[in-house]
């Protein structure tokens, strides 16, 4: 008797969602956040769900555990969990499932842990409540689980509060908490999005290991094609609340069927390819909001292959013959991705060779920025303690030639933002030299000449805060023009409209308020404002990292185009190595306030690497499941910048330290080893040794762009 039933439960998918539609009641009606979502996840399988923001990915996960808030409900369809329908379950029955059979991990670990309870208490209750386990037994199990998620000093962590451990460790705790009851289904909603790339890589490794060990079915939601390629076996692509394509991960990346999926593939930069061939093609338009979706196919307004039928008839999710792929498109068989041609009005930057001008516009030598911090002992309170400093930037030296782009990469806390703030004058340099157009710029901005201020402008990261919500687009772009007396007053309006046009925004945007713009549009206005005073150097602080990939590509192209047109020099900060690679001629890699490697982009991304560069490159998620990527991981956590390790600051975590006969030499300042003129590595390991290291990434050259 037992035999067939067990067999049966093996066959039944852990999760089987069919034609799911979730609606939210809002003032004056309701909107369907997701509609017609179908998917199934088998035991031990990791099913990725990928899509841009606002596509309904999270709603999909929340609907499974029926946590849709007061105004959300499942309107149509079924959610079967181990064969039983979950829709409509509530109360005690639902509670028993949550945290026991179905567990969830989500984005921001700091927010999702209770900050006034010790971690042990939060972990243990999962066991004591669901399994009625005794406190002592639960404690033991929790420690064992923490060890499984590779948490150092597990027993001690049980007694800590969330804010006392790092972000990566918090996410490990949340994952451990989810796994405690060995759930059949694990829902992960962007679990690594808030983490640094090397930490993310370690957490992704962990998830892969745990999946093998526990044989759990995982639903993995992310916006990042690279991550999805790394963690999933099958992938569903969501667009505007619908599942538009489902396929195995290999199929999806090899031959995407839906035009949207194809578009996505074209607009992410891939690490390892060289710059000239990796042109990004943005998808025109933007994701429609839930209330404003078009009739017919949801994608048709942005689709390059749109036909009459697409506008009238909503396609069904159908299977492609001879594959495991399902696609929601009428004509996917007719579409050949290889023969895709970019639309003619798309101006492609970066293809023209830039004129070689040998003029250094910015030169930084031995720049230092320290922040004073106050200690917490009684002595410090009375000012008798030792003075402590956060050494945010230490001995930064580089040159930027006119008209070129310098990319600065590094993880959070590496000092890249501080460096840029010091250059622009929002912070005063503690020591060192910095010259811009030959003028000293180690002082703060208020001490600078207005002409100099005008030549140095900045583009910011967050589209939601880059514009003042109280003023119209026109007013905000006009402000620098007025401030710097660039032109007579009566010409300002014309100039603003001209700038808007060069940002591909027409004049109706002139009187719009920021809240009427999308993220990408706000970022365009931010760029227009920075360019208004015709600066020679523009500092870009992660200008695209908060944007969706399709928009990101458009902004990057725009920046490149502008650079070509105005000959502007750019400094581009990013944590994203793929984007930086695509964008910059020169790259500078920073770690904990020190520059580790500096040189032309193509040389940075190929051996010889600095060990830190190598670790970074090996951590970057590559949107290609066939790509071979070495696994080099940094150990431990980032040390405090107040008391950084002496000598090479990487020495506590360096994966290549054992290559040296005497590892203690790392405690002294390393030499600047010159690979080529202009390419320097800050490391004790001799270049010949570093040259022996294989490239981190190798990709079969399949060029979707054609």
């Amino acid at each position, binding site marked *: 008797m037992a035999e067939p039933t067990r067999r049966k439960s093996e066959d039944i998918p852990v999760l089987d969602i069919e034609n799911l539609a979730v609606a939210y009641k809002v003032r004056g009606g309701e909107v369907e956040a997701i509609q017609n979502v179908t998917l199934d996840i088998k035991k031990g399988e990791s099913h990725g769900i990928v899509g841009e923001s606002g596509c309904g990915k999270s709603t999909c996960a929340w609907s499974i555990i029926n946590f849709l808030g007061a105004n959300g409900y499942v309107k149509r369809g079924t959610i079967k969990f181990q064969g039983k329908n979950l829709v409509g379950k509530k109360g005690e029955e639902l509670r028993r499932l949550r945290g026991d059979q179905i567990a969830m991990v989500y984005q921001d670990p700091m927010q999702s842990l209770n900050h006034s309870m010790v971690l042990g208490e939060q972990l243990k209750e999962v066991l004591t409540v669901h399994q009625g386990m005794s406190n002592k037994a639960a404690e033991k199990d929790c420690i064992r689980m923490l060890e499984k998620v590779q948490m150092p000093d597990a027993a001690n962590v049980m007694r800590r509060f969330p804010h006392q451990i790092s972000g990566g460790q918090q996410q490990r705790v949340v994952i451990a908490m989810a796994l405690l009851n060995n759930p059949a289904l694990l829902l992960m909603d962007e679990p690594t999005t808030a983490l640094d790339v090397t930490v993310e890589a370690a957490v992704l490794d962990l998830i892969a290991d745990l999946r093998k060990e526990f044989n759990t079915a995982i639903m993995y939601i992310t916006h990042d094609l690279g991550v999805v390629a790394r963690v999933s076996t099958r992938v569903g692509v969501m667009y505007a609340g619908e599942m538009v394509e489902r396929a195995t991960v290999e199929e999806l990346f090899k031959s995407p069927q839906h035009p949207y999926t194809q578009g996505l593939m074209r607009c992410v930069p891939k690490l390892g390819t060289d710059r000239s061939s990796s042109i990004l093609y943005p998808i025109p338009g933007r994701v429609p909001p839930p209330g*404003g979706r078009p009739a017919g196919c949801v994608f048709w307004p942005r689709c390059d292959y749109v036909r009459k039928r697409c506008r009238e008839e909503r396609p069904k999710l159908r299977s492609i013959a001879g594959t495991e792929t399902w696609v929601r498109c009428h004509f996917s068989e007719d579409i050949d991705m290889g023969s895709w041609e970019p639309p003619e009005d798309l101006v492609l930057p970066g293809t023209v060779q830039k004129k070689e001008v040998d003029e250094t516009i910015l030169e930084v030598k031995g720049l230092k920025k320290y922040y004073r911090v106050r200690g917490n002992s009684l002595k410090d309170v009375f000012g008798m303690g030792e003075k402590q400093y956060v050494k945010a930037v230490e001995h930064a030296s580089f040159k930027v030639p006119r008209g070129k782009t310098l990319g600065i990469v590094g993880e959070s806390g590496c000092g890249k933002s501080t460096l840029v703030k010091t250059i622009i004058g929002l912070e005063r340099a503690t020591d060192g030299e910095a010259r811009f157009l030959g003028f000293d710029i180690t002082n703060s901005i208020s001490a600078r000449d207005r002409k100099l201020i005008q030549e140095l402008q900045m583009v910011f990261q967050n589209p939601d805060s880059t514009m003042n919500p109280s003023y119209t687009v026109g007013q905000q772009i006009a402000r620098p023009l007025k401030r710097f007396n660039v032109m007579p007053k009566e010409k300002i309006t014309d100039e603003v409209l001209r700038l808007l046009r060069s940002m591909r925004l027409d004049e109706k945007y002139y009187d719009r308020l920021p809240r009427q713009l999308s993220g990408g549009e706000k970022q365009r206005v931010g760029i227009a404002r920075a360019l208004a005073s015709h600066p020679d150097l523009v500092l870009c602080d992660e200008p695209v990292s908060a944007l969706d990939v399709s928009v990101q590509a458009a902004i990057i192209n725009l920046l490149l185009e502008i650079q070509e047109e105005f000959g502007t020099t750019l400094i581009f900060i990013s944590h994203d190595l793929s984007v930086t690679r695509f964008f910059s001629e020169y790259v500078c890699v920073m770690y904990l306030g020190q520059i580790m490697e500096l040189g032309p982009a193509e040389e940075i991304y190929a051996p010889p690497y600095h060990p830190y560069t190598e670790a970074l490159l090996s951590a970057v998620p590559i949107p290609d499941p066939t790509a071979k990527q070495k696994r080099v991981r940094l150990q431990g956590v980032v040390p405090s910048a107040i008391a950084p390790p002496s000598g090479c600051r990487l020495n506590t975590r360096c994966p290549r330290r054992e290559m040296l006969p005497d590892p203690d030499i790392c405690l002294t300042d390393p030499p600047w080893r010159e690979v080529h003129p202009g390419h320097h590595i800050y490391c004790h390991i001799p270049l010949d040794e570093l040259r022996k290291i294989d490239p981190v990434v190798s990709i079969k050259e399949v060029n979707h762009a054609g």
Partner: protein
Amino acid sequence: MNAEAAANEENKSEKRTKPSLWKTISIIFESRVATIGMVMVAFWVIVGCISLVWTPYDPNSSDFIQNLSPNATNWLGTDHMGRDLLSRLMQGTQVILLKTRLPGGEHSIPGGVAIWGVLGSLFLGVILGLNAGYRRGWTDQIIMQVLDALIAFPQIVLYLVVIAALGQGDMVVILAITITGAPGVARLARSLALDIQTRDYIRAAETRAESAWFIMFREILPNARGPLLVDSMLRVGYAIFMIGTLGFLGIGLPPPDPDWGSMVNEARKYIFVNQLPVIWPALAISTLVIGLNLFADGLREELMRYQK
């Protein structure tokens, strides 16, 4: 997602249309709570405005039999001196909301004591709060320390001290409301400034080397006005409350104009005989304060929704 939808709606609208004032006002009507509150406040403002030109009888003359119940001539009854309660109640709105009597003369300026007091604390508080929140460091420490000292005074004690020192009068009450209100406004303005100054558009202004005053008043203040407006409404409520209390204690606004608090004070000695002269002004104060509270609450919710 809602905001996106809204934004999309707007994209369809005509090109180059300025956001209209009506649109801002219409936010109020989207909230039932705010609408109820506004109706309650508007009622008293209108009653006050009418009383400026017309009251049923002279509020200060004893024309009738004492302690009458409501009847056809005296709709709300009369008090212990035979004065018409409706007329007195109507005129009681004036000193609070509509006019301030200048010292010494018969002249008065528009805007009641509560309004001017709150405007005063808004002015003082915003200047201090923005400076503390934007400049931070020592400026912040010093300003906050001084404000802490002011906030340490129980409000009514501070009133009593001010009145003991300066005597009674409309201006003294305004001064007292200003002093007691300013620290609260400053704290709010400071916390808003601390939040807003982290935004990138402030950095953008700094990279243009704008002056601190420009950043504080042109970049930060416009984005802080919503919460400040809501807070001010609550403050008008507190002020009315306080004026009532002072009037009750007999040290508030000087005669001859009746104010609600002093009406209660006069009538309470006769409460065993006639409760109405206490009830009407008490109701007036309560409804006006509740109205302001509801208005503020509703507005705050709508503003938050609107910003999301």
